[in-house]
């Protein structure tokens, strides 16, 4: 089926003329129409623009000029990423109907590479969440089991790729928001090094942690997409001016890429609370790498246990400031007929923000307040430095670190919705990577007894995208997990 193609295969067929971009795009749009009642992955479908872009792609392919690496490939974009002329809501009511007059740099890069944007996908409001339940527009469902969450915050991105609604999607990752959904839906997700991909036009949650990355069917596609997204952007002062390597070349060795790779297994990531099937699958994955020539050793990241606490001080602190601009004055929601300026602010933000966003704004405001700053914000910054140093020490003797992505497989919708702390702990194995600014990839490495996917996380040193891609590709080439597809949910409706 067209919808199950990888980008690499589809691109090859498009170039050979065996497939038209319009047909491929129609297939994606049909698939969205057939499955999104069940999944609720899309907030906006840009069918007309997508078909027009596909027709232009076909013309370019026919002429053989202006063909980019993604020409004619249907891709979905997380709704925290600005798309010129297309509603961009961050899955929040406060940005209901907001249409940006600009593209994010990553959006332009996709368009310049020839991609066909099929629409904007659901997520946790302002990317704050681990389950997609915090969207103001309803939860996205996991195509493997509609009663379960797809993970968050890039849940719509992950579900759309897993269910064949798009060949790939863009997500953002602040504390695990690409990797957790990729693991829960059995696809590949890559969070680049902080500064590798531009944040210009990406609605900020926590600016020192946010990073855009691809969600894709396999490692090859992730490498291809990263090559399109990565690179210096003068409009983002935190973007790093550093050459973009040839990621396709990095993975060309296949299984051989694992040869003499030094793999560290941090004991803190295999501790109590891990679902036994998850631990077994990840250890088995490490053994696959060993069998392919990698050298395994145990390591320690001693400050891991402080990661969640550190994150839930720093990220809300930044968020409390980043979200101050949604005040009802210039765009987005405005509460009607407020009596005073203070009422206007209060009513607008009361009506516009969801519970979790409010919780984090309050947390962040508190930790930055006079008298508490040193005890919380400053202390958390120090902890962040310690966590970064943990990783530096391990990378002195290791090329990559291999860990599980989450303590469990996808949980049921509603299971943790009333317990924020339990929800926050879903990110315990992904947050350290963000605090240290490192690149990490997630690839499927097994299934639990219920048939739900299990993910493998491979972490690299700063700007070590090539090595994590190489390791992930070696694993993928030696296994079949990436070929598994969820059951077809076409025509189904969401369970009550």
């Amino acid at each position, binding site marked *: 089926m067209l919808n199950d193609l990888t980008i690499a295969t589809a691109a090859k067929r498009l170039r050979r003329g065996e497939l038209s971009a319009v047909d491929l795009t129609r297939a994606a749009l049909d698939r969205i129409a057939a499955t999104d009642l069940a999944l609720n992955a899309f907030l906006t479908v840009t069918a007309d623009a997508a078909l027009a872009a596909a027709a232009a792609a076909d013309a370019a392919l026919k002429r053989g000029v202006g063909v980019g690496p993604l020409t004619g490939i249907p891709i979905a974009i997380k709704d925290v990423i600005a798309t010129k002329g297309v509603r961009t809501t961050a899955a929040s009511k406060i940005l209901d109907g907001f249409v*940006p007059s*600009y593209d994010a740099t990553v959006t332009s890069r996709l368009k310049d590479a020839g991609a066909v944007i099929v629409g904007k996908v659901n997520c946790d409001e302002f990317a704050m969440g681990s389950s997609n339940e915090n969207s103001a527009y309803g939860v996205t469902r996991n195509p493997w089991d509609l009663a379960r969450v797809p993970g968050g915050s890039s849940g719509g991105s992950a579900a759309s790729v897993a269910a064949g609604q798009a060949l790939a999607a863009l997500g953002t990752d602040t504390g695990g928001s690409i990797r957790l959904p990729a693991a829960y839906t059995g696809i590949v997700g890559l969070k680049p090094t902080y500064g590798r991909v531009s944040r210009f036009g*990406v*609605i900020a949650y926590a600016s020192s942690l946010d990073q855009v990355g691809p969600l894709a069917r396999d490692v090859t596609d992730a490498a291809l997409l990263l090559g399109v997204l990565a690179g210096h952007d003068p409009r983002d*002062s*935190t973007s790093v001016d550093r050459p973009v390597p040839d990621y396709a070349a990095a993975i060309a060795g296949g299984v051989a890429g694992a040869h003499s790779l030094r793999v560290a297994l941090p004991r803190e990531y295999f501790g109590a609370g891990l679902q036994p099937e998850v631990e077994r699958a990840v250890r088995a994955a490490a053994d696959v790498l060993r069998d392919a020539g990698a050298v395994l050793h145990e390591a320690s990241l001693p400050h891991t246990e402080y990661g969640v606490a550190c994150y839930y001080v720093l990220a809300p*602190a930044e968020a409390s400031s980043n979200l*101050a601009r949604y005040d009802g004055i210039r765009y987005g929601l405005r509460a009607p007929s407020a009596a005073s300026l203070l009422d206007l602010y209060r009513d607008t933000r009361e009506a516009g923000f969801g519970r979790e966003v409010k919780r984090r704004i309050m947390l962040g405001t508190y930790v930055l307040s006079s008298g508490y700053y040193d005890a919380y914000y400053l202390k958390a910054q120090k902890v962040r430095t310690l966590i970064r140093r943990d990783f530096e020490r391990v990378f002195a003797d290791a090329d990559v670190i291999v860990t599980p992505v989450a303590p469990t497989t996808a949980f049921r919708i509603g299971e943790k919705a009333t317990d924020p702390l339990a929800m926050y702990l879903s990110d315990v194995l992904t947050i350290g990577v963000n605090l240290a600014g490192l690149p990490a990839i997630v690839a499927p490495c097994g299934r639990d007894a219920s048939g739900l996917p299990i993910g493998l996380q491979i972490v690299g040193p700063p700007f070590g995208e090539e090595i994590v891609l190489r390791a992930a590709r070696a694993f993928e080439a030696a296994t079949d997990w990436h070929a598994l597809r969820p059951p077809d949910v076409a025509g189904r409706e969401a369970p009550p």
Partner: protein
Amino acid sequence: MSLRLGAYESVIGLEVHAELLTASKIFCGCSAAFGAPPNQHTCSVCLGMPGMLPVLNRRVVEFAVRAGLATHCRIAPVSRWARKNYFYPDLCKGYQISQYELPICEAGWIDVPLEGGAKRVRLTRIHMEEDTGKNIHDAHGGGSLVDFNRSGVPLLEIVSEPDLTWPAEAGAYLRTLRSILQYLQICDGNMEEGSFRCDANCSVRPRGATALGTKVEIKNMNSFRAVERAIAYELERQVRVLEEGGTLVQETRLWDPDREETRPMRSKESAHDYRYFPDPDLPPLALPASFVEDVRRTLPELPDARRARFVSALGLPDYDAEVLTARRDLADYFEAVVAAHPNAKAASNWVMGDILRLVREQRLDDAPTITRWPVTAAHLGALIALIDGGTISGKIAKTVFEDMLGSGDAPAEIVERRGLVQVSDEGPIVAAIDRVLAANATKVEEYRGGKDKLFGFFVGQVMKATGGKANPGLVNDLLKRKLAG
């Protein structure tokens, strides 16, 4: 202005916000110019749209370093950007990007000329920040509108130590500081347009006490005069409160120029907690020593140095040098006159006399920089050259000057057109003397009889007879000879 402070003494510190004369804003490419129709100089960045990010304008850093070097500050090798968080409609992001813990300049000073000599005033810090937009109230049917043209215009905040005592010292400090910024060409110093704004921190304490009293911040003063009057009012108010047995609260008060009083702006209860923290969108600003040295090399001559040079190299009296260097534009004009004709003292007399009088009469100095002078420097130089060359007398020069003001013509043209060339031929002068002496035979007798004072009368008659064009020196010589004859 006399202050009634009784048994108290006053302590004043000033915070100046100076808008920088960069072409573009601090974090985007929009024009930073003043006066465009509302919201014309805006883009997604300076409107705080979702996902937009700041990119630092390097020119702002250069201007800040210029200011720091000119005020003897330490330039921080690494400074940091911070967010100052508060809600207001003119603040589009809900935070202002500023500097907090690590400002770009610290620990400087300037010498402020006062009547009893210069006073050294220490600067705590200078930091960079973005300006906010402007709320416009009741302009359209009672509602409020916001103009974001000013949002993101670069500012320097310059904070003094509480080294000032009197309102007049505060005024002198501000004038000196403004002059330095104008010399550096980084701020136009226009208080009315708000490109040079001042907040004052004032307190009083019993004479001789070392601890500082309760500090009150005064805002909304849009002229030097307003600053001095507001501080004077506030100091007296504070003394009055204390003398009546009351206590002062730390607060912000607004100066009301119509009622000539300060009024509380916001109470302590609603005081802002700005929740400063490092801005994660901007990396720390590292300045290589070479950058600072490059800026140092391009620093223009500052008022102190220029004043000294006018005395030592041009031979001007101290007073002239002081007056002429008080404003950069005035000093530039004066130097242009001297460049046209090298007679510094004559140029100084003309500039400090007729030119400054006219500038004040015509209110040309209301603009932050005088661009239109009563006569051009080249023409004034040429006029002085005509006097020094003997072509016209000083008296005729006044006539020529008046003509220049009206016609704008070059002095030589005017002299030619009006036939004002000085007569230095003996023939016509002797003829005129003969006529005058013949017509005043009685007075000639009286003069020769010892009434020396009549000499002036004869000179005047001869000048009159020659239409004022006769060379006065020659008239003197010839007349003396004839009368002695």
